[in-house]
């Protein structure tokens, strides 16, 4: 539903061992529950711990919840925050909503793209950054807004972009 095309794909740069996946899925199920209604929280938890949902995790969740993989993937691909592609160590999100747009969001967006050379949804080859656009974060009074991982930055000017990104290893 968003511009980001999501596909299940194996990458060589990031691999998560099967035992690790089993451990993460087990922990997520223990935390969220093991019924179909707990699916979104389970996937969110896996996504949070591993940064994305690898194909092995789908197999494992399918086995535990007795639900076909197709249904799991259907749910995972629906929600913007769930990713089936590996993400970078840091996820930069740019709010593309109208209130940020009218206070100069466009220039910040350009500065961001210049800084990391990525298109929305893309992860840098070195695995450091993933650049995404996000829907309204509800902090419209201090737009333009970007977030890096869990940190929120408000009233951003294009000049500040590099300075903010430098804070992340």
């Amino acid at each position, binding site marked *: 539903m968003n511009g980001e095309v999501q596909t299940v794909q194996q990458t060589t740069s990031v691999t998560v061992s099967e035992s690790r996946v089993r451990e993460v899925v087990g922990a997520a199920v223990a935390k969220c529950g093991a019924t179909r209604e707990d699916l979104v929280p389970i996937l969110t938890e896996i996504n949070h711990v591993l940064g994305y949902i690898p194909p092995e995790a789908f197999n494992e969740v399918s086995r535990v919840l007795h639900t076909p993989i197709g249904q799991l993937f259907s*749910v995972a691909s*629906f*929600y913007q925050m769930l990713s089936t592609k590996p993400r970078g160590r840091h996820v930069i999100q740019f709010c593309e909503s109208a209130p940020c747009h009218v206070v100069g969001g466009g220039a910040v967006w350009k500065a961001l793209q210049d800084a990391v050379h990525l298109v929305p949804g893309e992860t840098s080859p070195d695995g450091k950054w993933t650049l995404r656009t996000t829907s*309204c974060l509800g902090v419209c009074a201090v737009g333009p807004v970007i977030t890096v991982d869990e940190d929120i930055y408000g009233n951003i000017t294009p000049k500040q972009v590099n300075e903010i990104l430098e804070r992340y290893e």
Partner: protein
Amino acid sequence: MKYYRTHVLVCVDPECLGKGAHDIEDALQDELVAQGLIDEVQVLETSRIGGCSHGPEMMVYPDGVHYVGMTVDDIPFLVEEHFLKGRIAKKFLLPRVEVKDEELSAPTSKEVRVVLRNCGKVDPENIEDYIAEDGYQALGKVLGSMTSDQVIEEVLASGLRGRGGAGFPAGKKWQFCRASKGTPKFVICNADEGDPGAFMNRRVLEGDPHAVIEGMIIAAYAIGSSRGYIYCRAEYPLAVRTLNIAIKQARALGLLGEDILGSGFSFDLEVRIGAGAFVCGEETALMGSIEGKRGEPRPRPPFPAVSGLWAKPSNVNNVETYANVPQIILNGAKWYASMGTEKSKGTKTFALAGDVNHTGLIEVPLGINMREVVYDIAQGIKDGKKLKAVQIGGPMGGCLPEEYLDRPIDYESLAAAGTIMGSGGLVVMDEDTCMVDIARFFMEFIQDESCGKCTPCRVGTRRMLEILQRICKGEGKNGDIETLEMLCKQIRATSLCGLGQGAPNPVESTLKHFRKEYEAHIFEKRCPAKVCKGLIRYDITDTCTGCTVCLRNCPVGAITGDRRKLHVIDTDTCIRCGICMQVCNFNAIEIN
């Protein structure tokens, strides 16, 4: 319990955090320790104080002083002045807000705070603060002295209508759900506030979560439900945290769980978190998401009151609707119905944004007119410019021109003007806004967020967007307006849910009120507001001194000219980025 003479509430909502609220808080703690005041002054965290765009902010009680815009370096001065010498540090006062005991709003304000009454005043993470402000008294009254029918009667009589946007009478909804056969019944709070620019519900959840919880328990008692869900969007992590703390505290005091207040009535609730899908704000999609499925809408009827979550009778209201309920029970339906118009009672919160002097959250009695909101509360248009339109109702709302400023804000008047109340986004646009561009912008959002289940919304909005994009590029054709109008009608009539049915609103309302702008784009190839890049050109006037600043800054080398001679822009090379205009010191660049 320890007693403090003074409490400082530091606002730590995302906006203030973005401006270093945590650093301010740490500095404040350190300075209080240094001055030996740490046993007298307690520092607490809160959300939503009021001057959202002026953060970081803090509130000092019992003095009721509201400070904004301080930096870490200002803290020693502030602590010395206020906490040591007892003087108000005037330079950090919000210009508009006068020092008052309890109320946050200025006396000139036309605001009435019902839903926002506790925000910034209570520590949202301490249930005792809420109880001290008459919290859970309404619940006691309901469980101790009212039958379910009496509660529904009271809410019906208050005239409270759904604050999520559609405005269906809340009491009626409860009545239907109560009358439905089937158990268990569910009470659901829609906290999936996805409209860009609307953040009223976030502030209530972060600032006064117990009001929502209390409202939900009362609704559950009225309907006969024992289980509830709050569906909160994942973009609001602080709200989720606050809610979970609040629920835990309510449970510990026996206000949630088995046999509430010894009445024999049991109810418990949990928070469900979304995963980033705008359409989940639609009630049937929301329930699908709670069930662990794709959040896609389903056809109504059957309505949720008959067949909702897991096909059981369910009542869905939004945050603001529930937050009103305890006050209605406590002060009576008559009191609530005394505010507002004949058919739209009570107050409504709005998030003011756009080209006005004062942005942020407001709560006004319904029936107030737009002029009062724009010119009295928002203090007029920035830079003395003229107002062009007010966009109300979120992405599925519409744009109202100046002529509508004197009409009341209520459900019926807004519907008659071609827009909706929506959840409360209110964007004011000045004369420099291109209405075709705005329509395109909202259509882009709707197109992006369409879940794709039904064809009119999935394909129809794409076709509309393509036409609008063409018009903005200067490639509009005769017949485009008519095609847009036809698509509007068809999409509205045939879409499954509110998103699709409301999708034509931004286009329809701008076509209705600003048709001339569309015609100028299509037939004269001209953007009257000088916004659409395909229809403007940059020129250099003879005030140019030949300083070469524009020439050096042009990213594509479209500007030529010798030093101290008039420069020229090559229109074919120019990409209309506007940098030359920003850097020119002599106002020599104009848009034609």
